[in-house]
């Protein structure tokens, strides 16, 4: 069953075309690797899908419902969870309260505060942050912030996860953990679009690879067909002239 469909998504900043008519559809439980060099439009696409940016043209459907232009909070409540490449949690709030925000405002359940706090503990256990639960988020290391970012993205029990470079900036050990995270998320049946700088991080989980180049989708298919293909080379090395 189709979870997400994007048709003709276009976004421009000033004179620059960030996205020039992007079309794709995603089935439930698919894990998609979204590749493309800096400035190819990956984050802009995430901004559109999470409601932070209204596309100049095009439409987004989530489970058959047209959600183009809905504000982020409505998309979050409809099951879109997102992380940022550079995590900016609620710095002065404790790690626990950070996740509590996500648990409280996205979902109709759990209803009581005790239930919500249990849900927070569950999420903190998943990402391995229980020992920092009482500390202000501003005091977290980069690796811990990335874990918190993931807990936030998961806090609304999302149907679709948009993950932006979970592994970037991490040590090799941290990167291995991210690889294991992806495997767990996949095992839970989540639908995921993941941006990673290195495809190796996603090699075990990706069903499908999308490649953006200057705002256009230039390749879409199983990893074996897309990796090292001419469009991918052009995206990362420029055209042949």
């Amino acid at each position: 069953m189709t979870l997400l469909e994007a048709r003709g998504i276009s976004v421009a900043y000033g004179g620059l075309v960030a996205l020039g008519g992007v079309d794709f559809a995603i089935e439930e439980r698919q894990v998609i690797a979204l590749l493309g060099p800096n400035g190819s439009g990956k984050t802009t696409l995430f901004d559109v899908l999470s409601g932070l940016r209204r596309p100049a043209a095009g439409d987004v459907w989530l489970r058959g419902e047209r959600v183009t232009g809905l504000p982020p909070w409505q998309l979050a409540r409809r099951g879109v969870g997102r992380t940022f490449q550079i995590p900016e949690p609620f710095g002065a709030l404790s790690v626990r309260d950070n996740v509590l925000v996500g648990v409280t405002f996205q979902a109709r359940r759990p209803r009581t505060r005790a239930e919500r706090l249990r849900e927070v503990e569950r999420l903190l256990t998943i990402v391995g942050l229980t020992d920092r639960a009482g500390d202000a988020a501003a005091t977290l290391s980069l690796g811990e912030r990335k874990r918190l970012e993931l807990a936030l993205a998961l806090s609304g029990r999302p149907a679709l996860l948009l993950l932006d470079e979970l592994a970037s900036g991490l040590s090799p050990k941290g990167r291995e953990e991210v690889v294991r995270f992806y495997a767990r998320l996949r095992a839970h049946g989540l639908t995921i679009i993941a941006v990673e700088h290195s495809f190796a991080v996603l090699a075990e989980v990706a069903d499908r690879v999308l490649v953006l180049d200057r705002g256009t989708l230039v390749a879409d298919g199983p990893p074996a067909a897309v990796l090292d293909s001419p469009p991918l080379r052009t995206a990362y090395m420029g055209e042949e002239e």
Partner: protein
Amino acid sequence: MARLTVESLEAGYDGVQVLRGVALEARGGEFVAVVGPNGAGKSTLLKAVAGLLRPRAGAIRLDGERIDGRSPWEIVARGLTLIPEGRRLFGPLSVRENLELGAFVPRGGAVREETLRVVYRLFPVLDGKQRVLAQHLSGGEQQMLALARGLMTRPRLLCLDDPFLGLGRAVVDAFCDALRAVRDEGLTIVATGQHVRRLLRLATRAYLLDEGRVILSGTGAELLASEQLRRTLLP
């Protein structure tokens, strides 16, 4: 003597070391391409060279004179101009005003009119749009204007950070022609960016950067032919 020499350069941002001992040089009249994957340190290198980032260790010399640790305006006054990624034009000002602001340094001011003529000859499209506001130009024209503004300082060394970012193919073609023309006039250029194949074809000398180190150097053609380049750049 090389125009630009970088020796054992280490630099980064708070807590994160990006450059881990980079050495490279650009001789007079050369086009030097610095390529590498995201996060390799290309922009950081150019920022350090232009004085926007203070290196932690190493040396940067322009025509033999140490410029590391100097402020950006001192470095511009010595003839090194950086055209940053994203252009940073003065959007509400006209093409001509942007260019005149580019000449706002001792070396550029005296010969401003002459420089303007040279720049308009190189970029005829700007000549026809002198009064148009920068923010109303197309992406390609804005990039041309950024390059032209950089030339207004009459630099000895021009550094370009990802000059083709976000530009369409035809615009990149035109831009490459402009760069080739500038290069052929004898200006020394150091450029980074993602359009690796284009940059390497323009380059007389090239460096492949990965995780803050130079892992391969040679002529542009040599790098283009190397398997290591492909392995490093593709995801």
